[in-house]
């Protein structure tokens, strides 16, 4: 079952989509777990203030999502480049074999 990518990828998609379509008693926020952790810090050690600030912060949620998208695109782009190079080579080899057969078949 784990060898069939249609099943593997279908299952992964289903797990990602499940929280979005399942019925909830109380509609969740889908906030980041990192932010929830700072909530616990505030509870355990009230008044803790970070002693260092980020040097630069994305000016808005939109800019932040742009940068996340850029990160994902860079990763996906390089993966796609790899996949293209590797499957292209197989096709090249298959093409060369076919050409050779054709040539050898000629009298």
């Amino acid at each position: 079952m784990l060898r069939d990518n249609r099943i593997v990828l279908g299952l992964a998609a289903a797990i990602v989509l499940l929280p979005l379509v399942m019925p909830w008693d109380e509609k969740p926020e889908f906030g980041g777990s990192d932010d929830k952790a700072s909530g616990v810090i505030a509870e355990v050690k009230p008044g803790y203030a970070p002693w260092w600030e980020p040097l630069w912060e994305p000016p808005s949620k939109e800019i932040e999502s742009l940068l996340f998208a850029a990160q994902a695109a860079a990763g996906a782009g390089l993966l796609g480049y790899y996949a293209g190079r590797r499957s292209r080579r197989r096709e090249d080899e298959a093409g060369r074999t076919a050409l050779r057969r054709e040539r050898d078949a000629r009298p």
Partner: protein
Amino acid sequence: MHIMEGFLPPLHAAAWTAAVAPFVIAGAVRLRRIVREKPEARLLLGASGAFAFLLSALKLPSVTGSCSHPTGTGLGAALFGPSVMTLMATIVLLFQALLLAHGGLTTLGANVFSMGIVGPWVAWAMVRGGGAVGLSVPVRVFLAAFLGDLATYVTTALQLGLAFPDPATGFAGASVKFLSIFAVTQVPLAVVEGLLTVAVVNWLSRHSADDLRLLAEMRGEEKETGHAA
């Protein structure tokens, strides 16, 4: 799993940074050696880093009603060994700290420890150990990526528990609170990371037989010369 900028006391920040520095250097040395001795491996090496770049940018919803992201380090650890992924994770975390204000420079050491060291080593141990007990490749790869992802988040929770012990219940009590956020949210996402990693390895075994042969060759040489991963 990003501990945010300034959220670890200076002493903790310094200690984690000092602890990970040798691992990051070892990763850089190993990466250089692979590139020099096996230039054919560069493309797959780049693809392994790209997988971590892609997966760690995806914040996915979990059944707990929170969002979190996979790490993507299990694939590279399974293919090239854990230390290369320490360097890759450091690059990802640095990018996110500087441009996204996710994580931070003072917490970089702690975050590299969880995502770049614990995760990849757990994944690598699972791939090797699973082979020893005769698990099939897809099952080993799934468990490696799943456990590596989960171990990263468990580590983050323990690091926070250490830095912020509960006044009443101490390190254990605080860790349980952090675990209930990070580890529970992460379980379905770690399953997703396991499945995506298996999908890539399935694809590799069909289309990249040469690359996989090269990796097996590298592992064989390491055994002969006694070089660890």
